[in-house]
């Protein structure tokens, strides 16, 4: 089988993956590069636990062949932690009890980041729609939506000052 080298930047670091067969981005991130915040809840696009940001866009890493992101920049929750860009959101999650078992939480964090990058002032409905691809079996979603609402309100307050 002809193999090739896929070059990606993950959380700011250049990585090279040698691969010939179809390999998912999820598999590479979790198993080759040890970014274990990228969860595997279904391997079929149904749960959002594997959400990552590719070139600024939210994607499901379980359905993305790593070959298709050759030359791209990939960001996982580990990368967001590094930049401290979501510390405030994480604090809101803690305050609002927006995580219980925690399995959906990394995917939620990534999806919320992608939402706020596109729309800094989403309505409640827009928040619900933006998180519709991320399943949470524990919280019932309400605390998550409230955490996002309160971070949005806080950001608006800061912007208004």
């Amino acid at each position: 089988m002809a193999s090739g080298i896929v070059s990606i930047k993950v959380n700011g670091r250049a990585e090279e993956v040698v691969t010939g067969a179809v390999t998912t981005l999820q598999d590479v991130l979790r198993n080759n590069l040890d970014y274990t915040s990228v969860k595997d809840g279904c391997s079929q696009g149904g749960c959002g636990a594997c959400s990552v940001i590719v070139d600024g866009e939210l994607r499901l890493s379980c359905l993305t062949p790593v070959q298709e992101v050759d030359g791209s920049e990939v960001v996982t929750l580990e990368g967001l932690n590094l930049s401290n860009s979501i510390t405030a959101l994480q604090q809101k999650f803690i305050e609002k009890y927006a995580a219980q078992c925690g399995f959906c939480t990394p995917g939620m964090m990534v999806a919320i980041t992608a939402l706020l990058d596109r729309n800094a002032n989403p309505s409640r409905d827009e928040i619900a729609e933006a998180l519709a691809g991320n399943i949470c079996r524990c919280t019932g979603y309400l605390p998550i939506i409230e955490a996002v609402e309160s971070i949005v309100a806080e950001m608006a307050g800061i912007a208004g000052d």
Partner: protein
Amino acid sequence: MAMKDLKIVGQPVKLRDLDTHVTGETVFYEDVRVPRMLHLKMHRSRYPHARILGIDTSQALSSPGVVTVLTHEDLPGKKLYNALAGAGVGPEDEPVLAFDKVRWKGESVAAVIAETPEQANAAVAKIKVEYEELPAVFDVEEAIKDGAPNLTAHWPNNHYVYPDDHRAAQIRYGDVEKAFAEADHIVEDSYQTQPIEQAPMETNGCIAVPEGDGRITVYSNTQALQFSLDVTAGILDMPTSKLRFVGGTVGGGFGGKVDIQPEPITTLAALRTGRPVKFKYTREEEMQVSSSRSAWRVYVKDGVMNDGRIIARKVTTYQDSGAYLRFSSYACMKHCGHMPGPYTIPNVSVDSIVVFTNRTPSNAMRGFGVMAGSFALEVQMDKIAETIGMDPWELRLINAYREGDMKAHRKEVEDAGMVESILAAAEMAGKQLPENFRNMSSLDRKAG
């Protein structure tokens, strides 16, 4: 004591692992990194009921990447298990790997251990099992009829047998038949619930790692770590001191992770191969193979007076346990005790029966045994209200148990709060109740 004096009740308590949940640093079993890990995949029965005539693993064994294949012949200790056997409930009726028969579609038959999950899957497809298909039964009432296909000699009539040869968990309190004769109305109906998958976000799974000192460490997301440890020790014929189970971080359970499914066979695989082995259910396995909430069929007959008092209640329940017992006898007992509902009824008779069918074994889910009962009873309460032309809130307030009442299973009610709960709910819902109802209290009879 006033609410303000309480230091813990009413105060939020932070989850211990919340800080790492939000950063993605919480270590779930699958995040444990071990070198040279193998992967286990299960060959499962395609039939709901069949006799196994032969299992041929030769092609699977020579399939690329395969390290070993395990069948029932490789089990060193017990071939049958039940999680509650250690607690004196049983008997052990469920095969670790099927040998004489398969009794549900999806039952574990042979485990392939290979270098990659893909190689394991490819080899699973090469296992040849010769079956003689047998008639199957899928309905609880069909299953206990004479002449129905029998699943196992453990249960000659396809139902569980409680101590002292009882076919049902039972309550007998007062004289229901006499009360029915005296009642102004008889209200009778049947209720059926469906199996429900708990669907946790993280599927069932574990990683078993052989250690240098001869012990095996098992990283598991089970909700029943102690049961799992005990059962695994029995199946491997190993002292529990040789097994170290690491758990507690569960990516959602809701009862769906009390099955003792992945651990024993994965531990055996690690022992046999001398390498770490991972067994992770796919989402399809989680939905189709892991246990669900049971389906329950509940018959309720009530004798009711014109003034709303329920004077007699007779219940017959069939719990569909699926092919094996698991925790069903416990759930059915709990169901039985719950069945008069939160109401004081002077004449009660309950029979609740665990039935075995050729369906996926069922197990725990939130409100284990109780949910289906509450569903049946509360729909029944609305039906009674409609039949006698009474407000459904008032009907429930009249019958709600009071402090000191005797429940049908002969336990006196303590710390009753039912009336207050209904009244609080009515207020929140904006429901106007007449003054005599608003003034009701759980202490009514004590005071009177």
